[in-house]
């Protein structure tokens, strides 16, 4: 063992009085060892200037794979057939500052050889979830799966096979973008007419902000142009560290940094203003700010008139009043690339103060922002008027009460937001993890519309990500999946055996590209639903919490052992995954596994009767447009980073090109639920709105029993549940911890480092307490990414709730109450 003395004492006189680094544990057990590997695949030549390889080493360009959203272009160094080192790839020209990497990236040489890697197919021998496994051959695994799938399809139709995924991979061959989009999964699912169970996580933002409001966000690099940056629901210093250096650049140019968060994060530590908001009340804060901005005439009315839907008139039924309502026939516009049919031009109508008449929005010189107008007995109201009226109850005083923030602080935030722009609001899922969350994105768009904090450099409502064009047709065999919904509805599906009017009798559940039973909300209810399925398969790199509940587990390779292409572009460089080493152990890619199944089922033609990886990759990448711009498969084979040809200087700023009105929208004319099973849609879904959360709200009578409001954090030492056992990360952060405020801890007799039991009616966990002044009293933060066997008992995800808002079907990870007590069972 090594002698590492406590550095605290020596540093005391330097002003560093506390120890900030957990003492490391003893030597970690190693299961994986290295196995002999076959010959290396042909290596990609890297640009010489970019190669830090010494003799005998080869550099391969690829990336990590996981849902951190970073997609860092990476150089992997291979020596003697082993991954020994990684580094961020240099990016050419003006993109050089976008070079990116993080603590998790640097540890990938260990993660490849993680002790919890799945090495060969296994079948369950004990009860489900008991952890008893027996090694089987690939033949036996495929035969068993095909037998179960064949019988299920015959007895209960294609929808009896369900594919459940999250955001593990977006690869065009093996990934599951939107639950099924890849050559591998898409073709199998659409050929069978199977059930798709997609992710529930993050859909308050994805559905409300991106899909319904068409807000795509500005480029990462544009953060540097902001005069004020608000880390609001986001934590750029820890949760998305690639934004952070741009935040620092802006600050060095005089920008203000404000953090609004119940937790005192590293972002908060660097902030000029820290606003400790009560969880799940951000929407009320936004409306309080809106009313202050309106009452104090801090609005940017020119922007509101020209660039937002504020002056658009709406009818009593909530739909827009258009020129056709005044008898002007719609005209045909250009052909839509998606439908292939001409677009319909039917302009919105506004009241023009200049002429005192109702006119098409584009022809008004002074559109009225406020007012109620009459057209042949119909009452017409401007969007702004209707929004203002429906949200006027949220005064600064009321917001102060709801959010537990002083009135003066809210007034100050409103003034800064309105007058010290451009403001970059870095929202991420801190605003998106409650049942009331999706309203936040309308409310934020509303305050941005009032103040002009959108559509220009430095002004954003989220940091965006680009997309490399691909050929989605390559993923479809039939019309589409039999049913496509959110995996969070699995308990409902297993109970009702119906989705809307359609019979859905799930007999086979295939889990891949995600660790839903560790990372989705409402773990215990999801496990109960999984138990009801006849046969469960899980394909993963590691033995995850989800794999533990399968009947058969299938080992798939680490990203560095896989060839694939990920079109998601947070930098202008999509990821071409070149194979750095051959798959370890007996791993097969998802595509290879699905090809074996297809062959056995007599469906091998869906994958082109044994088509090569290159042919299938070309099907996804060699679209007409990509070839035209020299951006097809061949463009990624020379070892250089291939740039997204659609990324231009215009991509830096979201100028509302994704909205029907080509303006900033905060009103939703025709709100439709994301997963439609016939549920009621409330009128308030159209408008900026606030309602309290489902369980985690201050006045909830349940707080008498469970007084503490839950939340969590996008952990810097995990990629969700990836890296759970990566040795160096567990040296730094050996075990899960619960953050509890010092006053709450004192009330409960909990001391620093005590083991505690955190619990509610759904479940409990036993873990170490971190007693801190860095979290709002009355709030606790649970860890994210640790696996069941890393807790002393239980699992913190068991505290969370399966209940979602059925409008956006979004996992509500933080919407729970709980209590904490000192654990009397001793240490493990």
């Amino acid at each position, binding site marked *: *063992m*090594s*002698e*590492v*003395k*406590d*550095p605290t004492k*020596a*540093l005391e006189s330097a*002003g*560093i*009085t*506390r120890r*900030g*680094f957990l003492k*490391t544990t*003893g030597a*970690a057990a*190693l299961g994986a060892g290295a196995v002999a590997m076959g010959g290396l695949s042909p290596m990609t030549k890297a640009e010489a200037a970019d190669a*830090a390889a*010494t003799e*005998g080493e080869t550099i391969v360009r690829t990336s990590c794979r996981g849902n951190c959203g970073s997609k860092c272009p990476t150089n992997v160094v291979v020596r003697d057939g*082993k991954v*020994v*080192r*990684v*580094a*961020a790839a240099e990016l050419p020209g003006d993109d050089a500052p976008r*070079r990116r*990497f*993080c*603590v998790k990236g*640097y*540890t990938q040489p*260990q993660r490849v*050889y993680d002790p919890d890697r799945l090495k060969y197919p296994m079948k369950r021998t004990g009860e489900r979830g008991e952890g008893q496994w027996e090694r089987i051959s690939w033949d036996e695994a495929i035969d068993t799966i095909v037998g179960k799938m064949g019988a299920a399809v015959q007895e209960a139709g294609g929808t009896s096979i369900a594919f459940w995924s999250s955001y593990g991979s977006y690869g065009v061959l093996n990934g599951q973008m939107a639950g099924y989009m890849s050559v591998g999964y898409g073709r199998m699912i659409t050929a069978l007419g199977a059930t798709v169970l997609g992710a529930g996580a993050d859909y308050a933002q994805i559905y409300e902000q991106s899909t319904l409001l068409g807000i795509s966000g500005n480029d990462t690099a544009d953060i540097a142009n902001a005069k004020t940056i608000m880390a609001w629901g986001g934590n750029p210093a*820890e949760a998305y*560290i690639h934004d*952070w*250096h741009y935040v*620092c650049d802006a600050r060095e140019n005089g920008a203000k940094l404000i953090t609004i968060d119940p937790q*005192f994060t*590293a972002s908060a*530590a*660097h902030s000029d203003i*820290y606003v*400790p908001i009560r969880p799940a009340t951000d929407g009320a804060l936004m409306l309080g700010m809106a009313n202050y901005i309106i009452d104090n005439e801090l609005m940017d009315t020119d922007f509101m008139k020209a660039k937002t839907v504020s002056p658009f008139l709406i009818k009593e039924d909530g739909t827009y009043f258009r020129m056709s309502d005044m008898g002007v026939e719609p005209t045909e516009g250009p052909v839509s690339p998606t439908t292939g049919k001409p677009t319909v031009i039917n302009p919105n109508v506004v009241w023009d103060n200049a002429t005192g008449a109702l006119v098409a929005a584009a022809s008004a010189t002074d559109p009225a922002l406020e007012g109620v107008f009459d057209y042949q007995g119909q009452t017409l109201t401007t969007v702004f008027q209707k929004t203002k009226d429906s949200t006027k109850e949220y005064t600064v005083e009321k917001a102060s009460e709801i959010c537990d923030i002083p009135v003066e602080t809210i007034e100050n935030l409103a003034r800064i937001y309105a007058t010290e722009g451009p403001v970059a609001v870095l929202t991420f899922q801190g605003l998106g993890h409650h049942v009331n969350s999706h309203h936040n994105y309308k409310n934020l768009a509303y305050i941005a519309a009032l103040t002009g904090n959108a559509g220009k450099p430095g002004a954003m409502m989220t940091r965006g990500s680009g997309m490399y064009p691909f050929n989605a047709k390559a993923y479809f065999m039939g019309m589409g999946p039999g049913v496509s919904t959110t995996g969070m509805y699995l308990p409902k599906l297993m109970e009702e055996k119906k989705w809307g009017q359609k019979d859905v009798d799930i007999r086979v559940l295939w889990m891949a590209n995600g660790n839903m039973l560790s990372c989705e909300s409402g773990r215990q209810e999801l496990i109960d639903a999984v138990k009801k399925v006849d046969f469960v398969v899980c394909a993963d790199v590691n033995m995850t919490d989800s794999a533990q509940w399968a009947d058969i587990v299938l080992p798939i390779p680490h990203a560095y052992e896989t060839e694939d292409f990920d079109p998601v572009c947070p930098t202008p460089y999509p990821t071409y995954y070149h194979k750095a080493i051959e798959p370890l152990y007996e791993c097969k890619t998802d595509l290879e596994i699905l090809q074996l199944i297809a062959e056995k089922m007599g469906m091998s033609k869906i994958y082109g009767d044994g088509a090569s990886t290159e042919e299938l990759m070309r099907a996804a990448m060699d679209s007409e447009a990509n070839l035209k711009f020299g951006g097809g498969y061949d463009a990624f084979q020379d070892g250089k980073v291939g740039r997204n040809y659609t990324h231009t200087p215009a991509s830096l700023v979201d100028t509302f090109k994704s909205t029907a009105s080509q303006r900033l929208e905060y009103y939703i004319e025709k709100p439709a639920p994301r997963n439609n099973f016939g549920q009621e849609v409330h009128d308030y879904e159209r408008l900026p709105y606030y309602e309290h959360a489902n369980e985690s709200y201050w006045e909830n009578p349940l707080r008498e029993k469970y007084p503490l409001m839950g939340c969590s954090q996008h952990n810097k030492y995990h990629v969700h549940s990836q890296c759970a056992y990566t*040795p*160096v*990360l567990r*040296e*730094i952060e050996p075990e899960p911890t619960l953050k509890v*405020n*010092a006053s709450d801890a004192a009330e409960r007799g909990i001391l*620093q480092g005590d083991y505690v039991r955190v619990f509610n009616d759904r479940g409990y966990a036993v873990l170490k307490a971190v*007693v*801190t*002044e*860095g979290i*709002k009293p009355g709030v606790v933060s649970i860890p994210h990414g640790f696996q069941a066997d890393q807790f002393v008992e239980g699992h913190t995800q068991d505290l969370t709730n399966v209940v979602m808002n059925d409008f956006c079907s979004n996992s509500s990870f933080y919407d729970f109450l709980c209590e904490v007590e000192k654990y009397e069972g001793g240490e493990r």
Partner: protein
Amino acid sequence: MAHYGMVIDTKRCVGCNACTTACKIANNVPEGIFWTRALTDGGDAPDTPKGTFPNVQMRYIIVGCQHCENPACTKVCPVGATYKDPETGIVRQDYDKCIGCRMCIAACPYTGVRSFNWQEPAYPMDFAVGDADAPAHQKHTVEKCTFCYQRQARGEVPACMDLCPARARFWGDLDDPDSDVSKLLREREYMQLLPEMGTKPSTYYLV
């Protein structure tokens, strides 16, 4: 002749430990040992602040060998295993000469930056990761940050400098007035660790 030094901007550093792991992998540092690490200047657990919520403060200080101009360690080493390289100013450690007396650990005021391998060094994998030319670790020797002199010999920067996500780290020749580090020290306020010990550290922290 050069005098290499490091400047770390505490206004940018977020304690992410990317440098910690870059170092650990590049030098194949054994289990239980870190040559550099992010310490929280705040509460009594990592990533926690001092004060009373919400009036709290926290910052991160990255601590490794300070490569002092006037090192305490070199003076006490009975065999010359730890010595200051006159060409670079780097305080080096020769494992082959080290007899494991640990006098250097006792003498160094920056506790924790030097580690002793009581046992055969242990690793998660049975092959060495990192730089092929990083010196192998040895039982019964003291080890510490080397400023990655194997990389310098190739004209590269130390592993921790390769890409700091926050762009908080700077490295270069303190004797060269045009180096980034020299410029920063002219332009910004800084502190050093334990200046009263007279060790003249070559690591500076911008505040």
